[in-house]
C-alpha cells in the first residue's frame, strides 16, 4: 500500500492523538477526598477539598462528584444500588443526578458505613460522636448512640462485619461487637486503646486492630488480643488491610512511617513503602476481583501496588488527602458510559 504524505501525516497524528487519550478501563476507582491543597490556594484548609472523585481511565483523569467542598470520609454502594457519602457535615445520598443531605443537624462527622448482610437497606453509620442506623437504604437516620458505652467508645473509626453478621466497631476506646445489627453492643477488649482500623482475614480467622499504640491480633473474635508489632517503626497506626488472597498477610498504615507488611499474621513486619512519597497513610484498599491491586490513600495522593511488583506507583491526586478508596466494575453502554 502506498501512502501519500497527507494521509501519512493524518495517520501519524491520529496515532499520536490516540496514544494520549485516556483509555477507559473496565473498572472505576473512587476516592474520598478531605483536602486538596491546589483547589483554592489561600483559602481555609478545611475548605480545600472536593468530595468524591472518580476515575474511569486507571487514575489518569478524575472527575469530582458530590458536594464540591464536602470532606468525604466514607463511601458506600449499597446492595440496593444506592450511593452514600459519609461527610463531616452528614450523609449525602445520590438521587437521580443530584445529592440529598439525608441526615439532619445532629448527625455529623461520619467516619464509616457498614451494611448488614441479608438485610438489604439496613445500614450503620459510625461517626465521631456515635452510631446512627438507617432502615431504608440511607433515606433517613435514627440515633443509636445511647446503645454505646458513655466514653470514647462513642467515637467509631471503623465498622467490620464478619460472615455471621457480627459487627465489630473500632473505637477511640477499644473494640465493640454487636450480634443484633447494632441494637446492643458489648466490649471485646483493647479498652483504653485508640483503635483506628480493623481487618478480618477470613481465611485464617485473624482479626487485626490498628491502634495508636501498635497492631494487635485476635484469633478468637476479640475475646483476647496480643500485641504484634515487631518490625514496626511506628506505633501510630491509621488503618489495616487483610490480603485474603495470601495466608496471614496484612498491610498496616501509619501517620509517619508509611506502610508495613506482614505475611505471618503480625509476628514480623517489614516496611512496604517503596515508591510512596507521603508517609501519612490514611486508607488502604485491595481490589480482589478486578485487578488484584492494592491502593494506598495518603495525605499527598493515591498510590497503587500492582500484583507481582514491590514498588508503589503514583496515581496522581498528589495535592489531595485520600480518606477512602473503592474499586468496582465499570459498564460501558452505547458510548453513554454509566455504571
Amino acid at each position, binding site marked *: 500500500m502506498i501512502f501519500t504524505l497527507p494521509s501519512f501525516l493524518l495517520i501519524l497524528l491520529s496515532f499520536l492523538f490516540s496514544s494520549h487519550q485516556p483509555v477507559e478501563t473496565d473498572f472505576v476507582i473512587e476516592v474520598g477526598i478531605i*483536602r486538596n491543597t491546589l483547589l483554592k490556594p489561600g*483559602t*481555609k*484548609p*478545611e*475548605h480545600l477539598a472536593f468530595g468524591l472523585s472518580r476515575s474511569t481511565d486507571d487514575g489518569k483523569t478524575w472527575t469530582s462528584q458530590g*458536594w*464540591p*467542598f*464536602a470532606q468525604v470520609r466514607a463511601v458506600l454502594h449499597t446492595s440496593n444500588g444506592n450511593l452514600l457519602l459519609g461527610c*463531616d*457535615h452528614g450523609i*449525602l445520598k445520590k*438521587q437521580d443526578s*443530584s*445529592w*440529598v*443531605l439525608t441526615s*439532619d*443537624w445532629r448527625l*455529623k*462527622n461520619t467516619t464509616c458505613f457498614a451494611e448488614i448482610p441479608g438485610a438489604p437497606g439496613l445500614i450503620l453509620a459510625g461517626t*465521631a*460522636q456515635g452510631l446512627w442506623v438507617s432502615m431504608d437504604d440511607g433515606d433517613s437516620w435514627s440515633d443509636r448512640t445511647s446503645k454505646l458505652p*458513655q*466514653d*470514647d467508645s*462513642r*467515637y467509631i473509626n471503623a465498622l467490620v462485619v464478619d460472615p455471621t453478621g457480627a459487627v465489630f466497631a473500632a473505637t*477511640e476506646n477499644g473494640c465493640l461487637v454487636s450480634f443484633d445489627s447494632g441494637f446492643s453492643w458489648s466490649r471485646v477488649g483493647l479498652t483504653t486503646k*485508640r483503635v*483506628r482500623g480493623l481487618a478480618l482475614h477470613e481465611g485464617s480467622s485473624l482479626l487485626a486492630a490498628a491502634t*495508636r499504640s501498635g497492631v494487635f491480633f485476635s484469633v478468637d473474635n476479640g475475646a483476647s488480643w496480643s500485641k504484634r508489632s515487631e518490625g514496626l517503626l511506628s506505633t*501510630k497506626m*491509621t488503618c489495616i488491610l487483610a490480603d485474603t488472597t495470601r495466608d496471614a498477610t496484612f498491610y498496616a498504615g501509619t*501517620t*509517619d512511617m508509611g506502610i508495613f507488611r506482614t505475611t505471618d499474621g503480625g509476628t514480623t513486619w517489614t516496611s512496604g513503602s517503596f515508591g510512596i512519597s507521603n508517609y*501519612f497513610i490514611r486508607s488502604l484498599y485491595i481490589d480482589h476481583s478486578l485487578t488484584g491491586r492494592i491502593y494506598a490513600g495518603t*495525605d499527598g495522593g493515591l498510590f497503587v501496588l500492582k500484583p507481582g511488583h514491590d514498588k508503589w506507583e503514583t496515581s496522581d491526586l498528589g495535592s489531595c*488527602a485520600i480518606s477512602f478508596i473503592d474499586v468496582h466494575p465499570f459498564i460501558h453502554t452505547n458510548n453513554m458510559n454509566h455504571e
Partner: protein
Amino acid sequence: MSKVLKSLTFIFLIAATTLSSVGQTTYQERCDSVKAFFSTFDIASDYFILTARFHEGVDLDTAMSTLDDLLSSQPRGDAYWMFSTMTLYLHGSANLPERQKKRIRELWKTYQPLPGRSEHEQVLYYAALLLASENFDDMEQRGWFNGKSTDQNHAEAEAFLLDWFARTTEDGMEEFDSPTHTGFFLSAMLLLRDFASDRDMRTRAEIMLDWLLAEFAAKYRDGMYTGPHSLEFEYSAIRPRASAMTCIGALLFGDVELCYSGEQLLFAFSSYRPPDILRQIALEYVRPYTIVQKRRTGVRYRNTTAPKYVYETTFLTPWYSLGSLNGGLIQPVNQHSWDASWKAPIDRSTIFSMHPAASPELLAEFYPACEEEAWNTLASLYGRYPTFNKYVGGSPYEELFQHRNTLIAMYDIPKTDRHQLITTFFPHGLDATDADSTGPGWILARSGRFFIGVFAVRPYQMVSEPAGTRFVSPFRRNALIVQVASPPQVPTFEDFIKRVKSSKVDTSAFARKKRIRYTTIFGDKLEFTYGGARKVNRKKVRFDPDYLVKSPVLNSKAGSGILRVTFRKDTLILNMKNVRITHQP
C-alpha cells in the same frame, strides 16, 4: 471552630469616632451614626456592608452595581455567606431590585455551604436557613442546595434553634463571653427577632438577645468584656478594647467613644431596644459584686469523660474586674482563662497569665480529625497555636482559685509537654512598678486608680515586647498569686505596697504537696492545693452545680431556662421555657 475575623463576610473594624460627646448621646443617635457610617463606607464590596446602603437608600446605583459583581462571583464563606445574604435580602428589601433578589435565591440553590463545627457558625447557618425557608416563596420543593424540601429545611432549622435555646438557657453556652464572637450570636438573634414568621420564635430570639446582653452588661467595664473568655484572639486579649463587643458596648451604653463594627448593624436597623436595666447594671452598679457561672466546655470527641463544666468567677467594682475559670481545658486554641482588667486611659489595661500548651493530642480532644490531621490543619490555620509565646490558648495543666479580688494560679506541667514555662502579660504604660528583681517575690504596679500585685513563686525574667512586657518563668511546677485593689478598698498605692508586702505568703508545701497558703490584704486566709481543695478561712469552697449563674445582678438555676436580672428594685425575668419576658419595676 473559630475563624480569623478578617476572613469572614462580616467586616470588623475600629474607626475614628464621629460622635465625640461620650455619655451625652441617645441610643437612637448612636444607631443613626452607625447607619450613616456604614451606608457611606468606601469599601462596600461586602453583602453585610451593602445592606446599609440598600436599607438607607444611599447611592443605590453604586450599591446595585457592586452587588451585581458580588452576585456574579463564586460564593464563599458558608454560614457567613448565608447569613449575610439573608440580612441583605430582608433588611435591604425595600430598595433591592427583584432581579437581584432572584439572583440571591438562585445562588441559594447552587452554592452548597457547610454548617461548620463552631456553635456560632451553626447558629448563623440555621437562623439564615429558617428565614430563607420562610421568605423564598418560589423555591421548588427540591430546589434547595441540600436537596431537601422547603418544609424539611424549615423544620430542621427550627428544631436546631429550639434545641440551642433550651441548651443555652438550661445547661449553658459553649462559646460563652467571647469579645470577638458574641456579636455573631447577637446578630443572628436580631434577625430572627425582627423577621421570623412565628411569634414564639421572635420572642425566643429576643429572650436570648436580652440574656446574652445581660451577661455582657454584668461584666462590662469601660468598653471591655472583662473576665475569662471561651473564645478570644490574641489581638483583643492584649488590647481588650479592640473587639466587636467594645463597639457593641459603646453603642448600647454610650459610656465610651463610639467605634464601628459590622456586628452593630443589625442593632441599628432593628426596632429592638435593650432594656434599660442592662445599661444600669453596666454603668451604675457601685457596690463590688461576684458572679459565679457554670459553663459548658467545648464539645469533646476524645477524653470525653473529662469534666463537661467549668466554673467562672468574676469580681467587679466600678474600677476594675478580676475574673477566672477554675481550671482545665475548655478549648485549646482560643481559651483565655483569667484576667484583671481596669478602667484606665491606656488601651491595654489588662494582665493575665497562661501556660502555652500545644500538642496534637490536646487538639484531637476537641476536633474530630486524628491527632496529626488536627495538628497539620490547625497549625496552618492558627499559625501561633504551636508557639511558646502565644497569648491565647487553654492548658490542662493550669488550675485557678479566685476569692473576690485575689487569685492563685497554679501550674503542673508534665515533662513531656513541649512548652515548660508560664507566661504573663503586663502592658506598657503602667504608672508605677515595683519588682523584687527576678523573684521569687512581688511585682507591684499601678495604673490610674488600679493597683495590682503579682507574687511569683518561682524565678522569672521580664522581656520587653512591642505590646507589653512578657513575664516568663521556665519551671514546670509553678504558681502566681494575684492581689488587686483600688480606692476606697485601699487608699493609696503606697498603702497597697505596704499591705501586700506584709501579707503572709506560705509556699513551703508547694514543691512537695503543690499547696499554697496566702492571707489576703483584707485578712482572708486562702489555701489552694493543685488537684485538691480550695479553702477560704479553712472552709472548703464548693461550686454549686445547680446554678448557671449566681450573683446580686444575675441569677439562674440550671435547668430552669429562667434568668432573673436585678438592679436595685427593678427586675427583668427572661423565661425561655414559657417564652415570656417580664419587667417588674
